[in-house]
């Protein structure tokens, strides 16, 4: 059954039909399937809050569909989606009364099962928690998503030169924290 047809007829009249959707539902289903996992990983690791990440992910997709999507292919569309998500994260952090990730205890940020495959998260989680939100964002986009400086600038709204400098500093700091964490894991000999 074609629900789109039924719902559009039961909709709100001629005026509403003038607003063209950014993608039809089938195209969007494919795009969602390919982009939801990396977006979720980005949001949950940068925010440190699974419930918030889920809310922001849904809101990002809704806003993405409501906006006029870039027409230069899926790579650009995905970058645009990350940009929306980054703006939502920034708005969330700017809101008064929001608990910053720095205020959360480490045990809330680290995997609870302690299995061997969670080692990297157990090391990276506390290290990320000690970074500033913007640094976490930049590092994730650069190292997990493999975006270039220019693409990161487009996503975050910062200048390319600033990103180069900020990433350099954040990388040094993160590497230091990771090495500390690994030394702590090995324990005193």
């Amino acid at each position, binding site marked *: 059954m074609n629900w789109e047809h039924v719902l559009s007829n039961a909709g709100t009249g001629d005026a509403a039909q003038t607003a063209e959707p950014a993608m039809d539902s089938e195209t969007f289903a494919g795009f969602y399937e390919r982009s939801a996992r990396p977006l979720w*990983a980005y949001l949950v690791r940068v925010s440190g809050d699974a419930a918030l990440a889920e809310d922001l992910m849904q809101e990002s997709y809704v*806003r993405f569909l409501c906006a006029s999507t870039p027409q230069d292919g899926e790579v650009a569309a995905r970058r645009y989606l990350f940009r929306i998500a980054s703006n939502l994260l920034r708005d969330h952090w700017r809101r008064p009364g929001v608990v910053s990730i720095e205020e959360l205890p480490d045990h809330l940020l680290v995997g609870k099962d302690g299995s061997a495959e969670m080692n990297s998260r157990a090391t990276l989680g506390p290290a990320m928690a000690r970074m500033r939100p913007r640094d976490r964002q930049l590092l994730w986009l650069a190292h997990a998503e493999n975006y270039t400086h220019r693409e990161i600038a487009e996503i975050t709204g910062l200048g390319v030169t600033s990103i180069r400098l900020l990433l350099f500093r954040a990388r040094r700091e993160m590497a230091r924290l990771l090495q500390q964490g690994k030394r702590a894991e090995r324990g005193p000999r």
Partner: protein
Amino acid sequence: MMLGSCKRGEDVASMVRMGYWPNGCDEELREHIAGCGRCREWILLTQSFEQVRMESCAETPLRSSFLLWWRAELRRRDAALKQVGLPMTLAHRFALVVGLVAAAAFLLLARASILDWFALDGMQGLWTGVHADLLSFLATFWTGNGVLLVSGLGAVALMGGVVYLATDGQ
């Protein structure tokens, strides 16, 4: 991803991205990495982030894309409706402002008569006062201000017509 000032940065980046590190890395590049702090740092970060990304991706709570699509569709329609209703809202606000200004002007101009009415004793006195005022008010129009009355009524009718046409058009 740039690696700052290291000239082998791109080679190291593509080697790690393709999964050749550490086993598939050629000896010459391996020697470079062993001596380059920036490349080692980059490999450490990229491997940690990629591992966490992979683990996080596996836990993604996927929702129905169709529901998201319809949520966006409803929001878009709602926005379109608001946009369409904007002239009506503005017309309502304009009418309210005109009404309030007219009421204020009336109260200002007729304040002497109103104060006189309150000064009268009992209903009989009030009715007599209102009757006399109405008669004198109407008499002013019949004696030469008829044009003012007709143009006032015309303006009210025109305003009603404009609002009706705007509503019908939407």
